[in-house]
């Protein structure tokens, strides 16, 4: 295995490791992790066996130009997407917890309203009794 192959596989492994850590430390939900781990596996296999690229190129009739800047750009986009995913998870969790809190507050409101209605009924009843007695 030549060094570019090792580097390619190492990049895939590195991304896989990051995803593993992000899920383990609750920075990413496991559902999103599936996609990222698949991508990391794909990069690893593709990096380790670049001949797959030639095979694919042959099948599709595309040559294999040295497009390092494009690859670097794609790498940067990949990192940006990963950060976006973790941010999105945070927002999603916040929204879900707000929905949970709203549900709790709504229930509390219903209970308080019922209590106020009950208290008012008691007060009205007491006033009525007092007025009857005063007559």
């Amino acid at each position: 295995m030549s060094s570019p192959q090792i580097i390619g596989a190492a990049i895939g492994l590195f991304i896989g490791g990051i995803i593993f850590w992000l899920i383990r430390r609750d920075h990413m939900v496991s559902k999103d992790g599936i996609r990222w781990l698949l991508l990391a596996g794909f990069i690893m296999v593709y990096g380790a066996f670049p001949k797959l690229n030639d095979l694919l190129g042959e099948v599709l009739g595309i040559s294999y130009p040295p497009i390092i800047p494009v690859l670097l750009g794609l790498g940067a986009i990949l990192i940006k997407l990963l950060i976006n995913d973790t941010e999105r998870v945070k927002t999603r969790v916040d929204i879900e917890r707000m929905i949970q809190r709203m549900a709790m507050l709504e229930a509390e409101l219903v209970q308080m309203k019922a209590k106020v209605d009950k208290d008012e009924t008691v007060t009205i009843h007491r006033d009525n009794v007092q007025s009857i007695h005063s007559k």
Partner: protein
Amino acid sequence: MAIPNILVVIPAQDEALTIGPLLADIRTRYGFDIVVIDDGSTDATAAIARENGAVVLPHLRALGAWKATQTGLRYAYNRSYEGVITMDADGQHLPTEMAALLSRMDSVDVVIGSCISRGSFLRHVAWNSFRIMSGINVKDITSGFRLYNLAALRVLSAKEATMLEFQDLGVLLLLRSLGLSIEEVNVAMDERISGKSRIFNSWFSVSSYMLTTAIVCLTKAIPLRDVRYLKRFY
């Protein structure tokens, strides 16, 4: 023995057919407070639950069974209940079996009502695989019939628990990381009367569940011991 201050938490989505008799049964037998989390029902589930004396926590939109359960756990934790019993609204979990959970409440943090006779052969294969992968010694990992004490409520009310997708292995692994004890007791369960499983209802959702749970198993099989992480829960 004094009756503990328990809240019964029931997540429900379109369970109008079964919720009424279930609530009446629980009230008659135990007199526990009951909370029904209405997870985006389109039928009369919420109204029937209110009629039967339950507090209804209505979700603005459906969040799934685990997050609906967590709403109930957060409610219980905020109101200082000593423990929570979670159960399904579809008639699978029997109020008569609550006594089995309560009998172990003083000894462990989490009691799981286990019924391994249910489920298909494939489901058993999945359960066993996940058990081996995660190292969690629980046979019925998907049972939603559980009792959580106050320590477990505190952990499961945290933000980190909101990131979980299902009330199964992820929850158990989180509790194990925090050093809480888990025990299974055998209980009887009935066939589901209404509704359908939110996990095992199509090949796509089964595959998604299997993959998600497998990743949770692999990433969290070794308990987290990092103080900075554990501090988030206390």
